[in-house]
């Protein structure tokens, strides 16, 4: 048995969790002190995440051994009490079950590759130890998030990753725009977090616990309204963290951070925390079908909305950012259909191909002297063949071209939305049930995805080079991790999809959500699958035609539709609207309150009464004079008043 080979499971979990934290502390304090140690920080950081990954692999096998005997096997580790007051009894309790095992492997695995890549990307940066300290801290926080056994501890990780995101977006803080973007991310996330807190407390006051297993057993006994309320509030938290409508505005700005950060935090891991949260609480959401419907609608609308914006962006990272928002929307669609395991499936494959895309973008940005505008790229496939090959594979995967990972996960996802009509069928629009409408919107968005990704591929790698300066392929430190991720984006689902779905079985609602291999017999499924293939290939073909062969036609079309084009390239003016409808009025109110209430009203009263006392005391001075008459007057007045008081 593996258990006897290594440390006891409990300690192993703790070690796997704390390794990145230790490394972060060492990086920040020790390696920061001397320039010569800077280079160490990156490698120590990568090694710590790798060590953590290995530990999680061992734990994963232990868990699988357990799962073979019992379906609901869980590995636990209790680090003692955190809060202990009245009803509030919260422990530092960690758990590894199928879901958290998958997520922790993803976080440390992809995290490790991105750490290695960052060694190359940040090679010339003066503040490397600080960078790697934050990056390691992020891994630590993300691990708390996925390993937490109660909602409050999950919230610790939730806010922790938010902090790291804030620090890393604003990593190059000399530019105020970067700092501003970091702050925006934190504040917008806090709006979601407020919802999280309300939902958490609603659940807590109804059940007296925040532990997942206890919540699970108590949830059924709660009133449906209360469950729906709690589910809705927690979903607001997920909207913030996973950048859905209407709180998505922070994610495009978050691209101000270094590209490895965008890959790790804003594509592969942190932004999927909202999906993880809803999966973790799937027992709750299953009891709240109306909230599920809302989740599906918001997911579908976000997916579509973000994809349209991605069509016209010229900044390569912005394209990928909107693409991430759109893909997260897909995952929420699946959650809304109750297909929790499918959402996680797509989280995994998305992590591979989107991290790969971001890292390729980073490789290109680095090679092109920090140019991010795709109009200054072009023809890079000859100069950066490895990066090009990886980008191509990842584009095929995200577009959903057959037999890539993205194809399997996205197809399974759309299929469940289509087939799991029951959960969304209570809402109808005309003759169509909500599920079918959402399915077609999803399919159309998949088409848009293939188009905008094809466009980015063409603009970056095809045609003539339009930039200045020499361009060289990136170093092996950067290319190897990219290549690993590219190959994972290609074969992961076909190789490991079944194991994954097996692990996530408790989060599967029905047989409809089984992996492709098992569904292949179903004729309806076949039909839908062909449709998906057609959409993916058709989208890519359209992109190639319009952006490579017929760019002039495309430009002419853009000119004809100048107004919609402008609307899209300004992201529907959402930022401006928020600014003028919410931020500026609030600031005005705050300023006005300060001037009117604080300074004029309250201070006026205070200083006024001070002045009044001064005036009165000048008058009252007469009473204390040495003149006999006035003394007699005072005394007699007082006596009379006293008598009145006694008699009355």
């Amino acid at each position, binding site marked *: 048995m593996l258990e006897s080979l290594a440390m006891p499971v409990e300690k192993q979990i703790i070690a796997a969790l704390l390794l990145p934290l230790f490394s972060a502390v060492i990086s920040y304090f020790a390696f920061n002190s001397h320039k010569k140690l800077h280079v160490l920080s990156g490698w120590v950081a990568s090694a710590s995440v790798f060590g953590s990954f290995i530990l999680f692999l061992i734990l994963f096998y232990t868990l699988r051994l357990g799962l073979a005997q019992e379906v609901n096997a869980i590995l636990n580790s209790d680090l003692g009490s955190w809060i202990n007051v009245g009803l509030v009894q919260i422990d530092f309790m960690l758990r590894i079950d199928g879901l958290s095992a998958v997520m922790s492997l993803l976080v440390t695995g992809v995290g490790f590759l991105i750490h290695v890549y960052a060694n190359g990307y940040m090679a010339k940066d003066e503040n490397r130890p600080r960078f790697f300290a934050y990056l390691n801290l992020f891994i630590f926080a993300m691990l708390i998030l996925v390993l937490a056994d109660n909602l409050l501890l999950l919230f610790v990780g939730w806010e922790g990753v938010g902090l790291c995101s804030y620090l890393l977006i604003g990593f190059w*803080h000399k530019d105020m725009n970067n700092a501003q973007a970091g702050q925006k991310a934190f504040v917008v996330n806090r709006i979601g977090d407020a919802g999280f807190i309300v939902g958490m407390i609603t659940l807590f006051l109804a059940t007296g616990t925040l532990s997942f297993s206890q919540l699970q057993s108590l949830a059924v006994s709660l009133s449906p309204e209360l469950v729906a309320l709690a589910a809705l509030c927690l979903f607001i938290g997920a909207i913030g963290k996973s950048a859905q409508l209407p709180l998505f505005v922070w994610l495009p700005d978050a691209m101000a951070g270094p590209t490895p950060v965008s890959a790790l935090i804003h594509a592969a891991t942190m932004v999927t925390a909202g999906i993880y949260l809803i999966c973790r609480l799937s027992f709750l959401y299953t009891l709240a079908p109306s909230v599920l419907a809302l989740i599906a609608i918001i997911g579908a609308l976000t997916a579509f909305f973000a994809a349209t914006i991605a069509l016209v962006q010229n900044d390569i990272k912005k394209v990928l950012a909107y693409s991430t928002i759109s893909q997260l929307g897909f995952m929420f669609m699946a959650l809304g259909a109750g297909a929790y395991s499918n959402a996680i499936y797509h989280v995994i494959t998305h992590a591979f191909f989107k991290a790969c895309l971001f890292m390729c973008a980073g490789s290109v940005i680095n090679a092109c002297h920090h140019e991010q505008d795709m109009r200054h790229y072009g023809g890079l496939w000859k100069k950066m063949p490895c990066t090009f090959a990886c980008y191509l594979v990842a584009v095929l995967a995200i577009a959903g071209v057959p037999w890539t990972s993205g194809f399997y996960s996205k197809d399974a996802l759309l299929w469940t939305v289509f087939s799991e009509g029951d959960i969304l069928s209570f809402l109808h629009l005309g003759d169509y049930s909500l599920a079918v409408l959402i399915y077609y919107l999803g399919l159309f968005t998949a088409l848009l995805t293939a188009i905008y990704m094809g466009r980015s591929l063409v603009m970056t790698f095809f045609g003539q080079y339009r930039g200045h300066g020499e361009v060289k392929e990136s170093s092996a430190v950067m290319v190897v991790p990219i290549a690993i991720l590219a190959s994972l984006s290609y074969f992961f689902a076909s190789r490991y999809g079944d194991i994954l779905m097996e692990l996530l079985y408790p989060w599967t609602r029905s047989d409809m959500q089984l992996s492709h291999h098992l569904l292949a017999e179903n004729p309806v499924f076949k039909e839908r699958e062909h449709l998906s293939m057609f959409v993916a290939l058709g989208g890519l073909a359209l992109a190639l035609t319009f952006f490579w062969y017929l760019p002039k036609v495309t430009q002419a079309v853009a000119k004809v539709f100048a107004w919609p084009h402008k609307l899209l390239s300004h992201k529907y003016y959402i930022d401006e609207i928020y600014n003028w409808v919410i931020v500026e009025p609030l600031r005005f109110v705050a300023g006005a309150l300060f001037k009117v209430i604080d300074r004029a009203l309250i201070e006026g009263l205070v200083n006024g009464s001070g002045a009044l006392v001064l005036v009165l005391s000048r008058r009252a001075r007469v009473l204390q004079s040495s003149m006999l008459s006035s003394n007699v007057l005072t005394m007699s007045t007082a006596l009379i008043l006293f008598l009145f008081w006694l008699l009355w």
Partner: protein
Amino acid sequence: MNSGIFTLLTLTLPILAVLIIYFIPRTALKTLYVIANVFFALDLLLALLLWYLYVPESSSLQLRYQYAWLPDFGISFSLGLDGLSLPLVLLTSFLTLLVGIHSRSVSTGLKGYLICVLLLQAAMLGAFLAMDALIFYMFWESMLVPMFFLIGVWGSSRRVYAAMKFFIYTAVGGLPLLAGILYLAYLCLQQQNQVSFAITDWYNLNLSPNEQVVLLAIFTFAFAIKIPAFPLHTWLPDAHVEAPAGASVILAGVLLKLGLYGLIRFCLPIFTEAFAGYAWVLVILATLGIVYGAFMAWVQKDMKKLIAYSSVSHLGFCLLGVASLTTEGVNGAILQMVNHGITTGALFFIVGALYERYHTRLIADYGGLAGTLPRLSMFTLIFTLGAIGLPLTNGFVGEFLIIVGAFEWQAVAGLVSVSGVILGAIYMLSWYRRCFYGTPANTLAQKNDFVLREYLVFIPLAILVFVLGVYPNLILSRTTATAESYLKDFDRVLQERKMP
């Protein structure tokens, strides 16, 4: 041996130090500094000893010291500790030690400054330890004098105005408080046939509803000024802006807590029915304070004012916890009082450190400090995160408990207080961004990042931010028994009085 002697010693040590320092010439700066700090450190050790001797499980008063001072008038010099005062006593001696270490930066009149701080420390400890209302009142009022001088002598340009305002504001609350205290002693004479100022004796008084409401109003008025609760807060920004860094730390860190302390010590158990009936007023004032303070902090141009208004918001949270009358709320409030003392105290030290270097408090004059003063920026970030209640820093658990309590009281109160969580992030991070990020302002010359004295001040504070965030039970295990017994008595009295 009666361990109450340690309680007395903790209180008298600063006074002893004043007597010694009095005889040291004002020019012997180093001697003054060292001796004062030795005493500050000894006092902290004594406070730690009290912490160690205190039995967490018991809710009764412990480590009592009693001396029948004026027995004919029922006044006794009686001291004691429970879960409410213990954390605050420790906070007081901890923060004054840091202020003592920091006092090296005081340019003129170090002797007078140290004497004021020592007297202030004695007065604050006395107010927390006193179990006799008149003694409490004596210490309560005597805090004003050294603070008045600290602001009026060592403050900045408008210091005299600020000192007067501070003095008058608090004295206006204080005099009715004295009348209320005398009236309660008089009631004691009527009902128990002997004058008594012992607070615990008053818990059994039988007050008519009208008496309760009037006295509650009088007491709460005095305490609300100190807290400071909206709309009685306007003295605070002025006092902070003009006060020297050390005085600001004490003012925000300890002095403000006395308002809430009094509220729990006096109003909750003595005016039970009135408190239960009018808790909603406090809840409204508290939630208004949370939101209003946050909005005010957002638009401030002077960073001391910003932190002062953030105190209004944070203490609104504490007041909300107390007024919610729930175990979670009250415990959270006590915990948050300590946390606020640490983070806000630290932030005033930070502002002091910045002011020492650049002689301006205007946010607009700063920028890009993260590049020029990386260590100071790191510490500031830690305290900022503590202030906005990031989990695993000290601010989170208290805030969470208070919000739970508020939701138990009524969902609306909870919802409003949650908005404070968002607003807190906005104003604190905006401040941090404007001062520490961006390109360094040209006017800011390169300065020393840190000196030893600053390490000594900031490292313990930063450690506490994390320790209390990860292990809040350190405080909570001391407060729960007391808070629960207060609330149990509260409910019992309400039940009993309802029966007939």
